[in-house]
């Protein structure tokens, strides 16, 4: 408990010493992490579903594996683009 309050005091002192520009950079960095985390949820679920269904299809009908694989990569590419746009937002917030 003692240690926690000491850490809180230290962080409050650090926050008070920051200039507005530094505070802005800090919050931008925090939001950048949040932005990428949120952007990765949907595509993560989506890519999981695509791969799962593709494996199911290949197991049911092994002769169609080639076609399923190409279509699967197409679907993954479109879904992944959302997460990557989130990553670009992260880069822009953090570094730009």
């Amino acid at each position: 408990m003692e240690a926690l309050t000491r850490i809180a005091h230290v962080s409050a002192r650090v926050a008070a010493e920051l200039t507005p520009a530094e505070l802005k950079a800090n919050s931008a960095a925090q939001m950048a992490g949040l932005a990428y985390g949120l952007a990765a949820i949907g595509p993560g679920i989506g890519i999981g579903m695509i791969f799962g269904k593709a494996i199911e299809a290949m197991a049911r009908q092994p002769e169609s594996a080639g076609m399923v694989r190409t279509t699967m990569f197409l679907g993954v590419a479109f879904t992944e683009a959302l997460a990557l746009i989130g990553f670009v937002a992260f880069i822009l917030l953090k570094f730009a």
Partner: protein
Amino acid sequence: MLLTQIANQKFAQITAGLVPSAGEGRGFSFPEINSILRWKDVVPGINKVIIIGILATLIGIVLFLVAAMKDGSKAPKGARNLAEVIVEFIEKNIIMETMGKSGLGWTPFLLCVFLFVYICNIPGIIPFIQMPATARMGVPMFMALMIWVVFNATGIKHQGALGYFKGVLFPPGVPKALYILVTPIELISTMVVRPFSLAVRLFANMLAGHLLLVIFALLSQSLIQAETMRVFLIPIGVLPFGLLIFLTAFEILVAFLQAYIFTVLTAVYIGGATHPEH
């Protein structure tokens, strides 16, 4: 209580012992993004990324020139074997799966796209070069713009300007009232989102891989070269180093997969522009 205090002190000592890699401040801080991605000019106007791009072009040209000069009547080996494997991969796994037999005339174009993107990606994991040329937006952006021009021109050539834009903007089989909604969406998705996502997908994948490698390299460097608490920090530093080697192997897969996806999407766009939807 005493334990947490001791742990806190130890933690503070450990974090104070990390070598700051850029600027001052406690612990590990990431360097400026420009120091990772922006290279000094070797000759005015020519830096590492451009050299990689030029080399990628030259390697592709030389490989296929050497392969073409070999005797084709015997069993292929060496450069010719490699070239034949690549051409067969493009024809069988990319064109036949997306465009069908009528698209085989596009083999040279798609071969160039695939080889250039792949050879630009692969320096990201070659030691001492360690820079994928496609991690700078310029390279993927102009590739995507070129492909945008190519698939629109193909559509106009095969269906006529009126027929092509009618097929794109007014897809058949949609109730007439819905065109108010569908037409703007189709216009944006075909003309803006396609090249944008094509470029951003390649760029962001390679940049993410590059940053990941940089982060783990810097982390293991700062842990292994720590000034205090060496007994604890050096064994810990082995962990990010192991992950770094694993990620390097993973990046080979990503480099290939991104070149493959880029080419497949190009083939899909060209194929869609060649044959109107029914």
